[in-house]
């Protein structure tokens, strides 16, 4: 068996080990990599930045704990930016395993800025069948959510006074880890012409760029890179920024394996 043939039959566990080492070493020996801001991320940042104190943004936290790694840093940064500017938030969590996680996040960030439920933000929580919920909220938030997550009627919350539907919020930012994102574009933007921006996982990002180009969404935060760009813009670097240096090393290892694999493939083919 030639060297190239042996290369082609490399046990995949060696690749796992190499990736693990590539991730662990930069965690133990941290370093910084430059993060460049892309226009689609800046657009979301500018949107929040240009929102006036007292105005409302709808933040949809539509992911399960399995997407926390990429999407939690985005949600944290956007919430911090909004609360620091006294912007009010209406928050929903339409992913089935996400409401508890979202509640934990909201209580953590709202405590940091001393924000009160019902006054500075409203957490609507979860209702099944996100497509129908998104459509119904376009008419009135009270149709799918007569009460908030804590069981308080929306009509008794001071922040919801005179707030009926998407017309009463400046825009929607959907942080999504599944196909709920599609429904925000199709129903909230398509049907009700609401301004929509997205924060999506790396896997989903490429699928949603056509909607950016068509103007159906005004900004996209894609995966950990998008989250790190947002952290950089808000000048509060966190786990996403820390993760980018680790990501860089891991990517170099993946690229090396792709090159080795292809060289092995072509050389063993040539020998035959």
């Amino acid at each position, binding site marked *: 068996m030639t060297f190239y043939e042996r290369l082609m039959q490399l046990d995949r*566990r060696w690749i*796992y080990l190499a*990736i*693990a080492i590539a*991730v*662990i070493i930069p*965690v*133990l020996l941290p370093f910084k990599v430059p993060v460049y801001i892309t226009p689609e991320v800046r657009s979301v940042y500018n949107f929040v930045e240009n929102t006036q104190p007292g105005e409302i943004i709808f933040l949809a936290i539509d992911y399960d704990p*399995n997407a*926390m*790694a*990429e999407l939690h840093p985005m949600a944290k940064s956007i919430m911090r930016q909004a609360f620091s500017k006294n912007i009010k938030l209406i928050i929903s969590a339409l992913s*089935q*395993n996400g*409401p*508890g996680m979202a509640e934990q996040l909201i209580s953590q960030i709202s405590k940091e800025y001393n924000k009160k439920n019902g006054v500075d933000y409203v957490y609507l*929580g*979860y*209702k*099944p069948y996100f*497509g129908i919920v998104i*459509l119904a909220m376009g008419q009135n938030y009270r149709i799918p959510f*007569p*009460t908030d997550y804590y069981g308080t009627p929306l009509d008794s919350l001071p922040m919801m006074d005179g707030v009926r539907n998407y017309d009463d919020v400046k825009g929607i930012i959907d942080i999504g880890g599944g196909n709920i994102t599609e429904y925000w*574009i*199709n*129903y909230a*933007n*398509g*049907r009700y012409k609401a301004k929509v921006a997205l924060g999506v*996982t*790396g*896997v989903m*990002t*490429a*699928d949603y760029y*056509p909607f950016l*180009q*068509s*103007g*159906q969404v005004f900004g996209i935060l*894609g*995966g*950990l*890179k998008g989250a790190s760009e947002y952290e950089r813009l808000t000048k509060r670097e966190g*786990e996403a920024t*820390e*993760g980018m240096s*680790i*990501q860089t090393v*891991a*990517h170099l290892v*993946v690229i090396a394996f792709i090159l080795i694999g292809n060289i092995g493939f072509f050389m063993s083919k040539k020998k035959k």
Partner: protein
Amino acid sequence: MVTDLTTAIWNTVAVFLTFCIFSFLYKDNPFYKIAEHIVVGVSAGYFAALLLWDGLVPKLWEPVVKQGKWYYLIPGFLGLLMWTRFSKRYSWISRFSIAFYMGIATGVAVPLYVQNYVLRQLISTMLPVHFQNLTGIFNLLIILGVLCSLIYFFFSKEHKGAMGLAARVGIWNLMVGFGAGFGLTVMGRVSLLINRVQFLENYFPSLIRFIR
């Protein structure tokens, strides 16, 4: 981060489960199976409770019992019919509910999908081509990319000559798309690993601090 006894216990459970899942990378084993079954069980239980308290109770029980809106029983009854799926003899009854749901979903979705996924996307490829700046050139690339990719999926004529060339450009274009998708997928998967490693990195020192 371990700060008290409760977080110490739960974080230790999380660390154990993390290692159980990672152990699959070596080979399948009972620890991995335990962790996998816990994930499935917890998700199913959580969702069932959520459906009961955020769906059935506020959307059916309370309107009927507390507000006297008896007509909510009609969709409730249609929902009940879905359970006939478990019987070979009566499963046909569930088709009434499915037909109702399909009718509404199709009526709502089809016009919007045509508008937002076909027409809006078509409009966004009708771009001005010019050579005054990079935007004009990129617009040309988008138009050529869309046309060539569509030609690749046009099977009524043999891919030869100009048609063959366009189809070839189309497949290259698709490959670039798949490459971008693959790159982003790698980033996503590595991010998950990074998150777990960061969690472990925080866990061990904070546990030692707590024990001391």
